[in-house]
């Protein structure tokens, strides 16, 4: 079972060494009832395959999309998610928390 954060980092190294474009997303800050703790990782490859999680599945889709952009441009991004207003519901956290996610490319 690939579950712990460190196993995910080992997997990221494996992916990168297979010459796949890989991005690493890390939960940097949480407010309120965020589902995954600070330091949680999600890794994404250029085809959108991913492993790990930064939320309970609420915002992974959006992070994967942004990560594919990061893989292409090589520029790190800071993403924020939360229920700021109704329109944020689409990719917001249903639990009412807010999270900040740092996405960087492995190069």
């Amino acid at each position: 079972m690939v579950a712990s954060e460190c196993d995910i980092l080992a997997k990221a190294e494996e992916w990168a060494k297979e010459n796949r474009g890989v991005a690493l997303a890390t939960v940097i800050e949480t407010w309120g009832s965020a589902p995954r703790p600070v330091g949680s990782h999600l890794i994404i490859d250029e085809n959108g395959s991913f492993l790990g999680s930064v939320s309970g599945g609420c915002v992974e889709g959006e992070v994967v999309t942004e990560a594919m952009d990061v893989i292409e441009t090589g520029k790190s991004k800071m993403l924020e998610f939360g229920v700021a207003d109704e329109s944020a519901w689409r990719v917001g956290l249903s639990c009412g928390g807010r999270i900040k996610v740092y996405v960087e490319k492995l190069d």
Partner: protein
Amino acid sequence: MKIALLSALNAERAKRSAAVLVTDLDSGEQRLVKAGQLRKDPLADALHEQLRLGKSGTVEEQGRQYFITVQSPPVRILVIGAVHISQALAPMAKLLDFDVAIVDPRTAFASPERFAKVALHAVWPDAYLEQNPLDRYSALVALTHDPKIDDVALSAALKAKCFYIGALGSKRTHAKRVERLKAAGFSEAEIARIAAPIGLDIGASSPAEIALATLAQLTAALRKTDAMPAKAKVAAAR
């Protein structure tokens, strides 16, 4: 992140050494600080604190924000005694993502039939410990209440400063154990680190309930700095 940096971080983990990765959130610059080099780092105090808590987090220093990724080695549980409680404890510990090994020299107890899919070693604890030494990220759960088998492992766990040490046995059994450990040269404060009778007081009676109480107490020792007063003292003394 540079792949070489990630490889170095993963290599530290494979060695069961703690390390932190520092990311400057403004510039994106990163550095790996191994546990042995913390003191020389400009963020030494903050890194020490995060590592002590075992938590990743953001710190601010002179107007700059740094993200500290803390990597502590994976938690291991060494169970002494292939007894009924261990049969329940091993699968529960696996669910909690802890590595478990069971050691018992009595082959009638340590039979693969009783323990499917568990690292089971039918050897004396001293032989096992020689090959697999304990460390601060290990827990020891002594369940045989036979001094011949438990004591060696308890002594090793105290010396290695395991984050959790629990021993099964009645108050009377434990009182005798305390006398033996004192005679072996351990101080009262050191011996007080042993949780005995083992487990949180939830009125556990069946083997599975005792396993649950034990794993709950072990998890508290891992996650809460105030769960075990003696542990906090050990951490502060470092």
